[in-house]
């Protein structure tokens, strides 16, 4: 199987975030890491390759620093990488990102495309689904397990309230992978050593610009919520207070 894994570089989980001057996103001077669900997507792809053979290709968009996620993936065992490199890719909405990815792989024949379920920064969970639509492929989200079957793949999806869905799907397909479905491997020293010699194709914004349109989505304002402390004393007899409390929990706080 030939699998493409879409990976994203996101701010580190414990990084202290500061707003940029225009108040539309965070400042760039933070530490970055691989988007967690993408790490699981890569791991799943590597496991599929170990079972069935084939090739794992990783792709990312973003400035030079984003290449780090590709290097990491190559060190873990991906065969080659594609980097849509440039600051122009920062702040693209999901639709344009999906278009950019689709345009950059038009000459490739993948059986499967994996993305993480969502990114740890914007959290839209859209890129994978939109990519499937652009390619005209079927897709499934929140994937818990993947097994190769005769006609395609047998999948397990996570639904709400502890339910799962099992389904069969033909190939090629796009799957968005849930975190925690496998155990992540480490990049070994030998892997890191070998990664240097693996191919990395760079794609410029100019090369795929024709495929992009205006962003359909724009962040107007980003702000840190104001902390508020409000105490309300409920008065009356114990029974009255209890009744008021239940009412508030039900209708105001809506936790009951």
């Amino acid at each position: 199987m030939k699998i493409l894994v879409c990976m994203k570089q996101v701010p580190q989980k414990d990084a202290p975030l500061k707003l940029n001057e225009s108040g539309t996103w965070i400042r760039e001077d933070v530490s970055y890491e691989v988007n967690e669900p993408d790490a699981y997507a890569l791991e799943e792809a590597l496991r599929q390759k170990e079972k069935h053979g084939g090739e794992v290709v990783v792709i990312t968009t973003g400035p030079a620093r984003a290449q780090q996620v590709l290097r990491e993936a190559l060190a873990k065992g991906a065969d080659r990488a594609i980097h849509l490199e440039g600051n122009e890719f920062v702040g693209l909405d999901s639709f344009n990102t999906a278009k950019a990815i689709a345009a950059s792989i038009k000459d490739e024949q993948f059986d499967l495309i994996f993305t993480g379920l969502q990114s740890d920064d914007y959290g839209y969970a859209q890129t994978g689904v939109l990519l499937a639509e652009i390619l005209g492929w079927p897709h499934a989200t929140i994937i818990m397990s993947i097994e190769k079957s005769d006609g395609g793949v047998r999948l397990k999806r996570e639904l709400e309230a502890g339910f799962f869905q099992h389904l069969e799907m033909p190939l090629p397909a796009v799957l968005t992978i849930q975190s925690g479905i496998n155990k992540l491997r480490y990049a070994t020293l030998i892997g890191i050593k070998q990664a240097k010699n693996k191919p990395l194709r760079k794609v410029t914004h100019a090369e795929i610009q024709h495929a992009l349109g205006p962003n359909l989505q724009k962040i107007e304002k980003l702000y840190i919520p104001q902390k508020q402390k409000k105490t309300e004393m409920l008065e009356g007899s114990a029974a009255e207070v209890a009744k008021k409390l239940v009412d508030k929990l039900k209708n105001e706080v809506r936790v009951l």
Partner: protein
Amino acid sequence: MATATVPKTKIAGGSFLIEDRQPEEVFTPEDFTDEHRQIAQTTEEFALKEIVPNLEKIEHKEFAVTRDLIKKASELGLTSVDIPEEYGGMEMDKVTSAIIADYIAKSGSFSVTWGAHVGIGTLPIVYFGTPEQKKKYLPKLASGEWVGAYALSESSSGSDALNCRTRADLSADGKHYVLNGEKMWITNASFADLYVVFAKVAGEKFSAFIVERTFTGFSVGAEEKKLGIRGSSTCPLILNDCKVPAENLLGEIGKGHVIAFNILNIGRFKLGAGCVGGARTSLLSALNYAKQRKAFGKTLVDFGLIREKLADIATGIYVGESLAYRTVGMIDEALRDIDKHSPDASTQIRKGIEEYAVECSILKVWGSEMLDQVVDHVVQIYGGYGFVEEYPAERAYRDSRVNRIFEGTNEINRMIITGWLMKRAMSGQLALMPAIKKLMDEVLSGPSMSEETEAELTAERALVGNAKKVALFAAGVASQRYMMDLAEQQEVMAALADIIIEVFAMDSVLLRTLKLMQSRGESGSALPIAMTQVYLSEAMARIEVAARKVVAAASEGDNLRIQTTILRRLLKHDPTNTIALRQQIATRVIDAGKYVTA
């Protein structure tokens, strides 16, 4: 992608005292390649996900867990960086070696276990083994199937290891050496598979042997009850007519000291790097606590005296990194051109590392003393909680102490630092004597006008330049007074070592910061500049104390008065507002929640 701007010049060991380097000539953490960064990340991830969750088990001597961790570390390649590829190793540079020692440091106990295995347990075979010995043992050590140990000390010989009583006698048929004696303080003793054991052949010729755990007559004594690193194994070894095949003699008969000293020497840079990593871990623990603990309606990090400690810890890490990676960078440069397939490659590598014996000793002494100060600060920040076992400060405090004892006590290393430099000076290998003479002429001719320059950090450069002069001056005064007898004057030797250590630390941190300023500019280097200024100021004060001690011991009367005047002139500098600088450092570190350099 950035490639390493490793120094291209081969720099003579100890030359930092008499030569000025350009920032481009030193290796710094900012010069790590992508590969180095990834290895640091893999190592840290391994430490956080595998070692940290097992801290309790490690501390309770569940050695099965520890061995399993060594095996897992091996699978990642973390135990075979120094082993040649043909014997199953990764064969990578010494910067990588130091990076792993640095970033694996989350548990003193595990670091010691790992360090003994990859260092003193494995390296004697790497550097002194025959091809057959390497083929037989290195793949097993590289893969973590076997764990290595090193048995030099005895109950009555530690720093003076050559006085060991363990003996080895060749059997009548010449097939075996029969070892008898008892070794002490052997790290990894209870679960190692292979021990490099030192013994005197026929009670006279100090030699090394590769001893397998299963050899007849070999046994391990009871665990020591230690102050710290309690999760590591430390036991005596008992050799009772222990039969060691003749082919397991390591190196030459009577040349055991070459192995013993060289291996310790090599181990020192890793120990130094490990201390830097330990300090980084301790800072994180201190920040986590100080950011949430409230007192007097404020958070601990709002108090000046807590902030001062946090700033000092961060500065210690920054200077430590500068020292450690400059040193290993020089070593890598020296090893660069060695043909790895030449039959004496390991001898050449060993010699290349030996060139920097002084720098390695400095790193060991400086690193272990820095970490001891750091863990002390952290206990203090935790207050009462720092004194109880439930919190990490207490364990770190205990674990740190041994670093000043093993791999050559800091006292022995101070003797090595001054002694080695003096020896090189005498033999003319290092132009120390002409430099001392030139300085003596210069200072006796009275104060000179310093040239005004426009370069960055002018005052700081002048400070480091003067620190070098103080070192030369004090060494000159001491050697004039004691001549060949200087080596016997331990207190003077140690005071000189203190000055030399600070000079190397000051020089290294300044060069790193200047290099950083070239890439980030002055405004992007505010934090490193502040840390450099704080360190230089404090180090200069320590140099003053040591230099006055030397001069007061070596001179009297008019001579002493003249020399004190000269010293005062050399030490003269404007005071630095270290309180404001530390506030600035603390603000950044608290804000980031961890050690940062920007």
